């Protein structure tokens, strides 16, 4: 057991856990922040996506011992960010979600995309979002909502 000081959504948090514990489980079980989802545990689906020092990161495969002092932003906090807010609003106005389980990760990836490429092309969207899987098949609306958010932010 080790103690880690983390910054999550701007707040200082302290956890005591096995160093090998993936950040995902620290967020969900130690900090009770269940917005970040467990979909596969092998970085294949993207449901666990958070931002670490601004980089979209798959929290299911990153042990908490490798985070260091890099700030973490989760789905619970991304709405405070103007890009995050625009993406969430677009997701609602375009009726993107069905079951919703993948959408935390989809939104975190979409925000990372838009922060890096404010006017993404279809290819940009396919390449950047191609690692987030949606069993309900909301891909078409995800693309539409990303474009809507991009226009809204322009």
């Amino acid at each position, binding site marked *: 057991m080790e103690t880690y000081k983390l910054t999550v959504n701007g707040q200082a948090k302290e956890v005591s856990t096995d160093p090998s514990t993936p950040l995902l489980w620290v967020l969900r079980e130690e900090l009770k922040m269940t917005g970040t989802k467990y979909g596969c545990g092998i*970085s*294949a689906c993207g449901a666990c996506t958070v931002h670490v020092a601004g*980089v979209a*990161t798959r929290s299911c*495969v990153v042990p908490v011992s490798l985070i260091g002092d890099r700030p973490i932003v989760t789905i619970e906090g991304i709405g405070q960010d103007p890009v995050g807010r625009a993406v969430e609003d677009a997701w609602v106005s375009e009726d993107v979600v069905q079951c919703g389980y993948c959408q935390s990760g989809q939104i*975190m990836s979409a925000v990372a995309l838009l922060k890096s490429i404010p006017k993404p092309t279809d290819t940009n969207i396919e390449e950047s979002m*191609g690692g987030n899987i949606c069993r309900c098949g909301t891909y078409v609306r995800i693309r539409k909502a990303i474009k809507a958010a991009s226009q809204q932010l322009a």
Partner: protein
Amino acid sequence: MVHPSTAMLRRSFMLILVACAWSAASSGALGQDTAMKKVPVQGGREAGLAAWEHLYSVLTHPRCINCHTATNYPQQGDDRHRHLFNVVRGPGGKGVPALNCATCHQGANADSTGVPGAHNWHLAPLSMKWQNGNDEILSSAEVCQSLTNRSKNDNLDGAGILRHHQQEPLVLWAFKPGLRRDGTARSLPPLTHEEFVAATRTWIAAGMPCPQNP
């Protein structure tokens, strides 16, 4: 491409070890940078070519060549299959937003989840590809030419190449690649890092000779 057999490597390596020890003794302590000068080495060009084959065996091992692709994607595993999860090269070889290399690969191996890691994990540029567009490994001659072509190798001279082999974190990683997701150790290149550096010295001392295309 056919790799030289391990036994053959071991035999020719003994030859190089002697040559290395000799040249190291004459140029100072082992571990110093070697300037590219004409050092009389036992065996000369032949020793250099033999050393090159050792280097080639390491460079074309999966731990190295998986990131020296000619394609839009990296490879994974000892069978060098296309990296899963739809990751792509991206403009700087670091992936694309939301699917950067750093999205999963951190600054050190994550043995508990099977994800390898090292500082600045990324793909080698296309100029440093050691495979063709069909994921077939290039010949010894082709890789050697690529490595010694300063317009392709990030403008490195012999000293630069040696430094790269000695210190580059991703190179060092290949020799300590961590555990797979099933808990087994990733397979290692045919030389240790020390042997790899020693072979590099010999090759550079011999003038970085390249084999002819067959």
